[in-house]
């Protein structure tokens, strides 16, 4: 995989991620990004490689430390994949919030990340959604590459 990752998402879905973060504040929210990736989907539009077309909000399983951690169990992942299949989509990534912290991946994020997935982080400052970023783990697992988020009024289907 090379640099220059781009993620396409509609304005509405981006707003829903921010709202989920605000509702969960001061805890972290999390959920799956369902969409298409041109690596797998013939139907993905030609001008970008990955697009998010639906969200699958999840319950943060880290009730011991919900303000600075989130967890999605294997069962949740299987549920998200089932939901994706029902829409003819794939799970292309995950979103979570950083309450009162910048939208930058933490060391903990890196140690627990998977390659290929897009990781959207929304910063929620004093309960209000702020910056949103997206990241991909490098193949060598040592660092993240920022992924450009292109927000469109309507996702191209």
């Amino acid at each position: 995989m090379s640099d220059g990752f781009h993620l396409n998402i509609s304005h509405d879905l981006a707003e829903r991620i921010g709202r989920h973060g605000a509702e969960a504040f001061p805890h972290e929210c999390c959920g799956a990004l369902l969409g298409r990736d041109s690596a797998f989907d013939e139907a993905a539009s030609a001008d970008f490689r990955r697009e998010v077309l639906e969200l699958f909000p999840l319950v943060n399983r880290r009730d011991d430390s919900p303000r600075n951690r989130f967890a999605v169990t294997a069962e949740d992942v299987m549920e998200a994949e089932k939901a994706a299949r029902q829409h003819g989509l794939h799970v292309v990534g995950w979103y979570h919030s950083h309450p009162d912290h910048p939208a930058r991946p933490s060391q903990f994020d890196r140690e627990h990340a998977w390659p290929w997935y897009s990781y959207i982080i929304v910063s929620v400052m004093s309960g209000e959604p702020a910056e949103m970023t997206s990241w991909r783990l490098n193949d060598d697992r040592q660092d993240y590459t920022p992924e450009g988020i292109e927000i469109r009024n309507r996702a191209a289907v």
Partner: protein
Amino acid sequence: MAVKVIIPTPLRVYAAKKDSAEVSARTVGEALGGLTAQFAELRKHLFTDDGKLRSFVNVYLNDEDIRYMAKEATPVKDGDVVSIVPSIAGGSAASNNEIVEG
């Protein structure tokens, strides 16, 4: 024994975009070994440097989590399906010390 190993979506780019592979194995561990023999790039995403399964890599034999069986030594039979399922975790750089509930 001929078993099928289901490759999770984020790792398919390291496995010629295949969603599964057929391997010959007597145990779940051998099945995973057979998979990484076919697709060497998968190895570092499934195993730590000292060869242990990463903690966010979950392995199911048919519908059973191998943690509740004999883990990687769990025997397999012809036609079994071994699924690799991710779990996801992360969080902010906030330390627990800065977080005061209430």
